[in-house]
């Protein structure tokens, strides 16, 4: 036992662990400053956000050490059980009393637990386990359907809470699929779909009219015409540029693609009018710069950007923030989703850029670890981890610096939130444990 413990410690990936700890404790110090109260000044004050966060970090680290003592195989074989338990929790939590309008939390004493945070690693485990089962091939339709269900079940349960932000994170698994052999065309198709969809919403939201030779069109209808014309042009392009024997499939791809694009535009318009609520519409309008509404919907974004901007090149100094902390509260949610504001205000461009570099380094290290695995399970799990953290990081920062609409998801390791820190820690420590075994197994 002692021998094995030494063994593990010697094999744990130090760069990842160090980056992890740096992010977690920098995050804690930022939460400390962002929600500091003179009534309970100690960092271990349990009645304050930082005290609770510290407790959760300690719990997470203990959990991490426990995970490190587990057998890799045991973890792998528990995947479906973990997935099942967490899915059950997601179901039960829907019957819990609502907090801030969402059925997302179990309340136990002074602490709350958010099962959707655990769904991230649980789903990752299940997908990794399923795809690494011998005989399962991603190219097969059956595989795609099963993976889709593995993601969709917790995803839909989370949507019921409702927590669309977390659901968004589940889309990140598409990257994993791609790495595991999903056709690049699907990824490319999704990429185009996103661009076409965003443009469709933009035209819809702007309510722009276009005057063509005296005929006035709504811009989003004209957009449909443009897609149609593009499809026709590409059709002729194929006729002239592609060798006859390849033409057939290209024609079909083009026509289907064009039709899907138009269908997408239609559905976006439809969704914008019927599915979206006013607050969603407003968020899009603020993001597209159609509105600079500093008092209403644009308030969060305006305050956040002001706080970040006021940091200047070198920041105001630790505990010297004047906008994004509990004392002044100009930035809402300054210790959770908008924690980056506190950091950027206090440490300026140097600090915020350094943090981005840290996250980038962390993600690169995750991919390096993934690529060196002989075990397919570990590799897929590593990619899941990297994708999820990347999505979190990207959407959170983009939102805070005004490049995306306000979507409520936390900055991994940084934002206040016990379940999140525990969920992410479990994920990282499982990966560290699996990685430490990479030379022992040949799978």
């Amino acid at each position, binding site marked *: 036992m002692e021998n094995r413990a030494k063994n593990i410690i010697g094999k744990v990936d130090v760069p990842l662990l160090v980056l992890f700890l740096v992010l977690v404790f920098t995050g804690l110090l930022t939460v400390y400053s962002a929600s500091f109260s003179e009534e309970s000044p100690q960092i271990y004050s349990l009645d304050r956000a930082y005290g609770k966060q510290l407790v959760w970090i300690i719990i997470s680290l203990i959990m991490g050490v426990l995970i490190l003592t587990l057998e890799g195989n045991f973890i792998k074989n528990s995947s479906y059980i973990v997935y099942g338990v967490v899915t059950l929790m997601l179901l039960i939590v829907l019957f819990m009393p609502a907090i801030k309008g969402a059925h997302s939390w179990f309340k136990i004493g002074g602490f709350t637990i958010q099962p959707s945070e655990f769904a991230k690693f649980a789903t990752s485990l299940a997908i990794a386990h399923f795809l690494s089962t011998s005989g399962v091939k991603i190219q097969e339709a059956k595989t795609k359907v099963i993976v889709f269900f593995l993601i969709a079940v917790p995803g839909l349960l989370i949507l019921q809470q409702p927590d669309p932000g977390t659901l968004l994170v589940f889309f990140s698994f598409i990257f994993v699929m791609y790495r595991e052999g999903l056709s690049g065309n699907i990824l490319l198709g999704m990429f185009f779909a996103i661009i076409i969809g965003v443009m469709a919403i933009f035209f819809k939201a702007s309510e722009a009219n276009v005057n063509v030779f005296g005929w006035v069109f709504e811009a989003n209808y004209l957009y449909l015409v443009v897609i149609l014309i593009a499809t026709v042009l590409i059709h002729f392009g194929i006729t002239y540029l592609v060798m006859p024997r390849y033409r057939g499939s290209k024609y079909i791809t083009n026509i289907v693609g064009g039709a899907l694009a138009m269908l997408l535009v239609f559905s976006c318009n439809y969704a914008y009018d019927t599915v979206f609520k006013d607050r969603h519409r407003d968020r899009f309008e603020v993001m597209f710069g159609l509105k600079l509404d500093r008092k209403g919907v644009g308030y969060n974004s*305006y*305050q956040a*950007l*002001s*706080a*970040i*901007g*006021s*940091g*200047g*090149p070198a920041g105001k100094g630790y505990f010297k923030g*004047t*906008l994004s902390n509990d*004392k*002044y*509260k*100009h930035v809402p949610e300054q210790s959770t989703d908008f924690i980056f504001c506190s950091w*950027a205000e206090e440490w*300026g*461009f140097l600090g*915020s*850029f350094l943090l*981005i*570099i840290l*996250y*980038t380094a962390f*993600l*690169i290290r995750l991919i390096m670890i993934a690529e060196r695995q002989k075990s397919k399970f570990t590799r897929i799990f590593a990619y899941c981890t990297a994708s999820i953290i*990347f999505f979190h990081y*990207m959407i959170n*920062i*983009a939102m805070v*610096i*005004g*490049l995306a609409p306000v979507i409520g998801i936390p900055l991994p390791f940084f934002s206040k939130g016990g379940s999140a820190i525990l969920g992410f820690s479990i994920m990282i420590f499982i990966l560290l444990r699996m990685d430490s075994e990479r030379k022992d197994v040949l799978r």
Partner: protein
Amino acid sequence: MLVVTLVFGIRLLYIQVLNDDWKNRAEQISHHKVTIHPARGLLYDRNGELLVAVNQVYDILVTPKDVKDFDTVQFCALFKISREEFLKKIEYASTGYNVSYKASTFIESMSKEEYSRIVPHLKSFNGFDSKRRTNRGYPYGVAAHVLGYVRKISAEQYYADQNGGERYYNQNDYVGVTGLEKVYEKELRGERGSAFFLRDYAGNDKTNLEETYAIAGNSLYTSLDVKLQAYGELLMKNKLGSIVAIEPSTGEILAMISAPSFDPNKLSGREFSENYQVLLNNDTLKPIINRPIYNDNYRPGSIFKLVQALIAMQEGVIFENTGFACNKALINCHNHEDPSNVQIAIKHSCNPYFYQVYKRLIQRGEESSIFKDSRLGIEKWNASVKSFGLGTKLNTDIPGVKTGRIPDANYYDNEFPSKSNPYGKHKWAFSTIYSNSIGEGEIGVSPLQMANLAAIIANRGYYYTPHLVKKIGENGSKRSEYLKKNFTMAAAKYFDPVVNAMEMVVDNGTARAAKIDSISVCGKTGTVQNETFNDHSVFIAFAPKENPQIAIAVYVEYGTWGGVWAAKIASLMIEKYLLKELSEQGKKKEQQVLDAVILDKHSDFK
């Protein structure tokens, strides 16, 4: 992933380093500037008595945009105003430089008592608020003309200050409008301070970032003697005219009375507008005018003979013992001995004597043509007279000081009798202008200048520019220009016969009414001819003869000849100032003066 990092990096670089917009916006969000108003300086009299104090008052403010769900009837009953008045005030609060979304004054300067009656109900009226403010109060209720008053800055003055001025004032600031309040505005107002606060999302000030302290305004220690001032105002009740008393050794003005006067408290409270209308426009006697400095078209009458005598001796056209016969063919006079010297001439105020003196001054025989000769003479004479502070603007620290007029050659060439039809060059000579010789004619002198003349003679030849402020600030000093001696063109030795004559005037001459047994008063009466009604009564004096403490000029409009009212009032002022208590003889005089009603008989005079 690297693309994302790059995009984030560039975006952050833009927000945090390259572009200042968000920094400015952040400052708007988190910083809060608060102006700290300094206390305005107070005004004291020369003995430390408080002339201008501070009262707590309350302004009621209205933000017209927020006035809704409103019980107008109840409101009007509470504030004791009519519905029309209410609507008019609301209208006013949203026009001009008042805008409907900003608070502006609805009712100004409400007293503490009135405010405490209203304040419990104020909250139930949307759009109304109150602000505490300090207001000027006048414990003695005297010297309204000298002290001036304080008023909310006018739109014109505000814009003038903003465009090319110092850009000091805010729209709701109070400024001194007249009197010392205006002249010493900068000293009295102090320096505004400001504080920067960091405020939280709800607008509460949390942290004091920096503060520049407000510096309280300097108090003014005036030269007025409030008891003398009040006594003067009392004596001038029911009369029109002026009293100016000066301490000759310093030029400090001890009292400056303009009658009729008014209680300065009237221009301090919320009835300002009504009271101002009454004082400025509706009263035919124009109490708002500060006569001692503003009425410079008073002819001095016989008191001017003192100046003529001094100049003539200095110029050598007569000597102390030069005598002229009292030749009534030249100019009318009353019956008295022929003056054999200057003293007797002054004692009897002999008109023919000064006719001849003036003739010698104007027509000196330097040119064969009397016209050319008169031009030369009058220029010389004019310069000499001006050295007595006459016909020149005294730089006294009160607004609206007027120059008076000592005519010169140009005046008769181009302006007299009228600008459209003047005499013209070389068309006039002494014979045209001889009325000037006895202080009539085209000479205009303000009561302040008369008092200054008395001070000059008391000092035997020089004066300090009369002024009203001894000290600016507790440890301050007066303006340096008031420390400078201004010498007349007449040498000190020529003053002795004049002074002696003035003593005789009071002892057994035309001003026996001014005699005080225990004090040697030197004075000179004047009677200014007035064609429409009684002559004006003028008297200047100083006392005691040696080491004079007070020089005084009293001008009583329609007061008949100088010996009657002006001399009595002047002697009472002197006695009160020098002895504090009146003698039996003084008390009798006082009663006569108090009983004398000159004003209401002539109040029809426009």
